[in-house]
């Protein structure tokens, strides 16, 4: 397929989702309100913690609120990679449109990419909300941020999660019901990955476990690049580890989705819940 057609198709998928999202205006607005209240809670928690500053935050040279704001914004964004594809497939199955999409000339791989696009866009808006609300209402400043480095880490980490998301989507296609991957992994990632608190305060055994999680490296690198302006060279270790995770999960994801679609075609239950 020609590149222009591929981009045009991507735009049609995004437009379709945007139109649906805008038809639920209250839900759209309530998302922004929810982010505001979540941040407000952590802002006042941060104010209270100012009297008991955490030593583990010294490496980032920041306060608790900024630490958690970045943790929340990015973990929500990355978690999306885990959920979005499976959620999109489940939604298309529920509407009965998955079979229609599968009967079209679109390849399975392109279909998966397009189904993820709209939620990716939605969550990119959500991350901007986090930053804007943090800057406007809670006076957070990012003077020394290295945005290029940050973007590289967002992309690599998103690929890690997208690979996991494909495995999750394959389980949805296969088992038709919710699968343990998103539920368990997301719980573990958020608890041990350093979203709400530095992993240094965890017991040693859990810290060792945290060393095996991609989110640990992702959040550390993202915080360092935004708060300390650290460059890519200084974060080579994190970049290599995340790239390794991305490679493994993307290959496993593509293989498992191909297998799931193949099995569903044999059993004839592609469009059924």
């Amino acid at each position, binding site marked *: 397929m020609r590149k222009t*057609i591929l981009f*045009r*198709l991507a735009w*049609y*998928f995004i*437009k*379709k989702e945007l*139109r*649906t999202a805008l*038809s*639920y205006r209250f839900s759209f607005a309530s998302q922004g309100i929810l982010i505001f209240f979540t941040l407000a809670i952590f802002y006042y928690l941060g104010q209270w913690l100012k009297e008991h500053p955490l030593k583990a935050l010294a490496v980032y040279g920041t306060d608790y609120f900024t630490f958690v704001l970045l943790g929340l914004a990015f973990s929500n964004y990355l978690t999306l990679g885990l959920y979005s594809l499976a959620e999109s497939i489940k939604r298309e199955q529920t*509407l*009965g*449109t998955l*079979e*229609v*999409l*599968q*009967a*079209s*000339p*679109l*390849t399975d791989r392109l279909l998966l990419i397009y189904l993820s696009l709209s939620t990716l866009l939605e969550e990119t808006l959500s991350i901007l909300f986090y930053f804007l609300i943090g800057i406007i209402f809670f006076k957070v400043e990012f003077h020394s941020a290295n945005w290029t480095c940050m973007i590289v880490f967002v992309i690599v980490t998103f690929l890690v999660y997208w690979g996991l998301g494909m495995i999750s989507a394959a389980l949805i296609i296969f088992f038709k019901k919710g699968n343990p991957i998103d539920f368990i992994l997301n719980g573990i990632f958020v608890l041990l990955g350093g979203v709400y608190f530095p992993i240094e305060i965890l017991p040693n055994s859990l810290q060792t476990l945290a060393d095996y999680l991609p989110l640990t490296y992702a959040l550390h690198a993202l915080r360092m690049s935004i708060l300390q302006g650290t460059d890519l060279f200084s974060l080579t270790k994190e970049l290599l580890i995340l790239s390794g995770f991305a490679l493994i999960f993307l290959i496993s994801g593509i293989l498992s989705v191909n297998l799931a679609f*193949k099995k569903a*075609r*044999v*059993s*004839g*239950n*592609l*469009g*059924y819940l």
Partner: protein
Amino acid sequence: MIQIRQLSKTFSNKRSLAQLAPSHSGKNKMAIFENVSLEIQRGELFCLLGPNGSGKTTLLKILAGLISPTSGEARVEGFSILKDRKQVQRRIGLIFSESGNFYPRLSVYHNLQFFSSLYGLTGHSFSEQLNFYSIHLGLTQSLHAPFQMLSSGFQQRVNILRALLPEPPVILCDEMTKQLDPEFCQNLKNFAKKILIEQKQKTMLWVTHLPEEARAVGDRVGMLYQNRIEILAGPAQGSGS
């Protein structure tokens, strides 16, 4: 043109029993049909009859690339459903028996615009096609209504319109008249015969369980029964079958 050669489909017993025909074979396998062969020429409307659960929908879904056959082969416009699935799908318009498979909160127009884009039909060509077919299907007044606001009959018309818009040479219809009122049903049959078959030379496989509908519309009529397709005569001769 559709060529089906020795096509068989067997489902595992683990599959939901509600969707299956009575078992014809071993304990763990259920044969839906076996060694089915059929050839439908360009410009021909072939009606396939059969009782509930005889495998009519499964056959259509195999041709449309949604279900893999257990054995055998089929070709659509010369392309193999096994080796060139995407080429086949580019040439098929599938009219589903269920009409709800749209995005309910989007307008009919936006739904059709989205689904047509999957076939590369966009812009001016899309508008021209939409204009032509929506007049014939009586949908011009409903294009900007949210899909969910339409009656089931009108939703089914949109379902038919979606399949026709990309102008595929082969059209597969799965009990498409079951939600339509008798008057529109008659119009649709005339439209299929005069415009789609005579004028546009489409190949149509029209699945129904209504013998009178099959006799009225089909150039030939076949019956999928006890695992096989038995070809009945053309409409005039077949009326007594």
